[in-house]
């Protein structure tokens, strides 16, 4: 990993920033889809150094933020059942449901366990045969293969008390939905880095081909992000619309085929529910019929909670990039990371949380 030191060389970063500044001539809107990019951009401080002609829009790539309110309420409902152990990534614990949170339910005696991996959830199921162990499966293509692995493992080992409450989402169709939304007006994309590790460069081809929108796959170093901006500006200037991959250390044209295979074995494309947005066609994954016994909704005969949007929270518009947190009257007043009103303030990758932490003052 010697390359990291070289990538962090201050002269390289300065030089690249200068190149971006010189290249920027007309107003452009660039969306960074991934929450980890949002975080990296704030952390690096480049937002303040870019010319006003470059508007960076934070996209929908924070899995916790896009998970709908009703999903959290269903999970909370389940955590109250005596026969259930809820297993979840830590980020979900503090997301407010309409009346409580998983953290609060745990404190009140609910059986909720934080796990590092769905594979740990399968292990918990094995060790606790008297309980139904439900994993809260949220995430994008980065997380989908691991969830699929957990399902295959439980299937092969005949573990009948493991299931998932799935709200897994997929990126390319989500980006398409954003592109066709005229209110957002995206001129170029910085593609989600680790989603691309799995799906490769190929699935973004339609952006350039069908919509004349250039896209760059980039890493998370400051210089990676500057390079992505430079490449996007260059392509826009030349009217040359392509997908460029500047993250080839972790992304190939085809992606990780083994991971894609296991995703396709276990899941099929479905519509998916988004926080504050509703159903978006073809943006989710659901279990194939073969694995239907691992669907918690069917297995545990759950009546899913209704969507009860939080009044005043504009997370939905923030996820779509239509607004930024400074447009929300609650931001940094009643809504803070310690006392979050909406999901975007909970996860580190959430746009509201990133704005709060780094006090972004410009858009």
């Amino acid at each position: 990993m010697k390359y990291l030191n070289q990538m962090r060389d201050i002269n390289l970063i300065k030089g690249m920033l200068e190149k971006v500044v010189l290249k920027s001539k007309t107003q452009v809107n660039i969306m960074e889809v991934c929450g980890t990019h949002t975080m990296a951009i704030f952390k690096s401080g480049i937002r303040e150094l870019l010319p006003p002609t470059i508007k960076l829009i934070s996209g929908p790539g924070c899995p916790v933020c896009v998970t709908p309110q009703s999903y959290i309420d269903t999970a909370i409902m389940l955590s109250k059942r005596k026969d259930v152990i809820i297993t979840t990534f830590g980020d979900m614990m503090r997301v407010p449901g309409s009346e409580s949170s998983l953290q609060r339910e745990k404190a009140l005696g609910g059986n909720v366990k934080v796990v590092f991996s769905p594979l740990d959830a399968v292990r918990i199921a094995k060790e606790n045969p008297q309980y139904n162990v439900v994993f809260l499966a949220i995430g994008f293509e980065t997380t989908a293969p691991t969830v699929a692995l957990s399902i295959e493992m439980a299937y092969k080992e005949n573990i009948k008390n493991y299931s998932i409450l799935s709200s897994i989402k997929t990126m390319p169709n989500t980006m398409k939905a954003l592109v066709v939304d005229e209110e957002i007006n995206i001129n170029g994309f910085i593609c989600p880095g680790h989603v691309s590790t799995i799906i490769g460069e190929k699935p973004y081809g339609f952006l350039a081909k069908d919509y004349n929108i250039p896209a760059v796959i980039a890493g998370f170093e400051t210089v990676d992000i500057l390079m992505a901006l430079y490449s996007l500006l260059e392509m826009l200037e030349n009217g040359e619309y392509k997908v460029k991959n500047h993250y080839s250390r972790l992304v190939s044209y085809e992606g990780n085929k083994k991971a894609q295979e296991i995703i396709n074995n276990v899941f099929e494309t479905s519509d998916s529910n988004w926080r504050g947005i509703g159903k978006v066609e073809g943006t989710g994954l659901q279990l194939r019929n073969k694995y239907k016994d691992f669907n918690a909704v069917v297995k545990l005969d759950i009546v899913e909670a209704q969507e009860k949007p939080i009044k005043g929270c504009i997370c939905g518009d923030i996820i779509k990039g239509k607004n930024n947190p400074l447009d929300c009257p609650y931001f940094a007043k009643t809504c803070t990371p310690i006392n979050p009103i909406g999901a975007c303030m909970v996860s580190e990758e959430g746009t509201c949380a990133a704005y709060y932490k780094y006090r972004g003052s410009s858009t």
Partner: protein
Amino acid sequence: MCVAVPVEIIEIQENEAVVNYGGVKKLVNISLLEDVKVGDYVLLHAGCALYKIDEEEAMKTLALFQEILECNEG
């Protein structure tokens, strides 16, 4: 939660490997990868190694950065 981190492989045991996770040894699943060996760096997310980091490609990207810096037009 989407955060994925590079970790070094220390030991391989069939479908699992011991990695150095910020100084702590951790057992992770490597069944999504082919031909990993001790000393490789992999991208770890949610208990699974997702990709073997290609250092040669990283050097090519660095060379591209340099090339852009050295070219004179804006």
